[in-house]
């Protein structure tokens, strides 16, 4: 046995792992640790009293609920959008492809102000929706609209490349073997796309949970109704309550982390099971 066989095939494992850890600590872990250290100055009962007041709990429901819902909506329409962009050619396709990225580039405050102007009762859309009894601006629905807007590119951009790699021949083969269209979608297309869809979902969700700029303008910010958790954090900061703000922030961090772990586990599971099918 030579030493060479005990070595890994790819060179530089030690170096790249060391670099990864150092970089992650510097950029992610140390700032996050600061949140927990500040929170640790509280006793557990004080911490619990802060993070479990009804007003704060109401914001968790809105923030996490609206973010999950927005990510789900984005999955449906994002996959559709990616599908049409990959599978069909039509005039203006390049243009639409570029439009998808706009929510990435737009400053979130601009997005919030334009959405509010659009959906307020004197806005272009709001003036037709309001008589129908649909209020968007200054309600939780407005929060959802803003979160859908900022989350859209994530699903499209994760699904698109996978779809491009999925040859039409697979679908043709399925059809020639007698599969109906629905069976082809369900047994061939969806299983291949699922890991990418879940990644897109996780990214859109993560972005939506932390979103502040665009939501604040359209939400109305009424306690118990349309306040998001990041606003509670900002409100606490403006009252010079740094510890309270970090306490709520740490709850958000832990909840988001657990949810993202779950999504990642789900993704790994679907990848394994899709391999079994193919």
């Amino acid at each position: 046995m030579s030493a060479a066989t005990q070595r890994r095939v790819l060179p530089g494992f030690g170096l790249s792992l060391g670099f990864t850890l150092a970089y992650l600590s510097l950029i992610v872990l140390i700032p996050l640790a600061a949140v927990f250290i500040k929170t640790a100055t509280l006793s557990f009962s004080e911490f619990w009293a802060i993070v479990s007041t009804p007003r704060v709990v109401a914001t968790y429901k809105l923030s996490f609920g609206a973010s999950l819902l927005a990510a789900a909506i984005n999955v449906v329409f994002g996959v559709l959008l990616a599908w049409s962009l990959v599978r069909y050619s039509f005039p203006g396709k390049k243009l639409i492809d570029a439009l998808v990225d706009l929510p990435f580039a737009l400053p979130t405050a601009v997005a919030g102000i334009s959405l509010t102007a659009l959906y307020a009762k004197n806005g272009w859309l709001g003036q037709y929706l309001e008589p129908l009894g649909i209020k968007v601006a200054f309600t939780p629905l407005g929060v959802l609209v803003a979160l859908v807007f900022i989350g859209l590119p994530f699903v499209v951009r994760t699904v698109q490349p996978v779809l491009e790699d999925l040859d039409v021949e697979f679908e043709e083969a399925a059809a020639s073997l007698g599969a109906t269209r629905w069976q082809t979608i369900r047994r061939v297309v969806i299983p291949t796309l699922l890991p990418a869809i879940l990644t897109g979902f996780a990214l859109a969700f993560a972005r939506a949970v932390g979103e502040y700029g665009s939501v604040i303008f359209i939400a109305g910010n009424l306690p118990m109704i349309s306040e998001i958790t990041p606003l509670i954090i900002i409100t606490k900061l403006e009252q010079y309550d740094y510890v309270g703000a970090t306490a709520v922030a740490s709850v958000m961090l832990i909840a988001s982390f657990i949810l993202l772990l779950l999504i990642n586990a789900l993704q790994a599971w679907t990848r394994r099971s899709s391999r079994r099918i193919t």
Partner: protein
Amino acid sequence: MTKPLFSRRALASVGVAAGIALAATAGIAWAQSVTLLNVSYDPTRELYQDFNAAFIKHWKTTSNGGDVSIRQSHGGAGKQARSVIDGLEADVVTLALAYDIDAIAEKAKLFPQDWQKRLPHNSAPYTSTIVFLVRKGNPKNIKDWNDLAKPGIEVITPNPKTSGGARWNYLAAWAYALKQPGGDEAKARELVTKIYQNVKVLDSGARGSTTTFTERGIGDVFISWENEAFLALKELGPGKYEIVVPSLSILAEPPVTLVDKVIDKRGTRKVAEAYLNYLYSSEGQEIAGKHFYRPRDPKVAEKFKDQFVKVDLITIDEVFGGWQKAQKEHFADGAIFDQIYTKR
């Protein structure tokens, strides 16, 4: 023969240009050697724009003076105070209420706790009060605070937890209920609760609420700083809104102070002192009056007396026992304002 890469003339002009650029930067550096940073709250943008221009002129003509440039920062009073606590080097702060300046003194210890005694009139060179802005013709017939509590009235006010102005709004409503015949704490709480149940949008700062009421067309009445209401009237169309002055309101004293540690470090004490004192001069008072703040100087106030309606004004000290107490009882986490929303 190859041509030289740069002709002699081109070289000369480059030299001249470089010289001018150098002189220009030196000039800027010299002019900026005295700068003041005034950290202020939301609706004072227009006031300080004018006042700063006047002060720059004034400082040139005084014997010890010279060139000075002034930078301004505006935002919700709480956020502004926090920036200063966190290290923003403000030479002077001009905020919406004493509580936020107290917080700077207490948490960052940048100036003494008794700062409010250092300048005349509780360190507030101008005052304002809280009034209602309603839509043209006052279609909902809003006259006084109790009208805001009626069912079906949509009220716009910022969030008192983040906006200094909104705290004045809240306390004015509370004081009104106390001063009614048979008024007590319970009645006051009931009125304020009903008013906030009519609030459709809680923006984080006064300027945001102005936008919600005017640009978005939300709400029947906007509880506002008097100066902000006048400004909305002037800038956004006098034909579209009206000001309604309630029977009783609160004397809002937005105070100013020097940030001692910063001015001593930066060597700007003289000009910063002159800057704040100039607010009290008749020129400064006139500029305040022009921007719809009530001047303190009786002579200047006389000039503007037709602009401001006479209204019964209570002070925070006589009704609420000062800002520290009011903050603790009404706006702290879990205090009355939070209870209004959580105990329905």
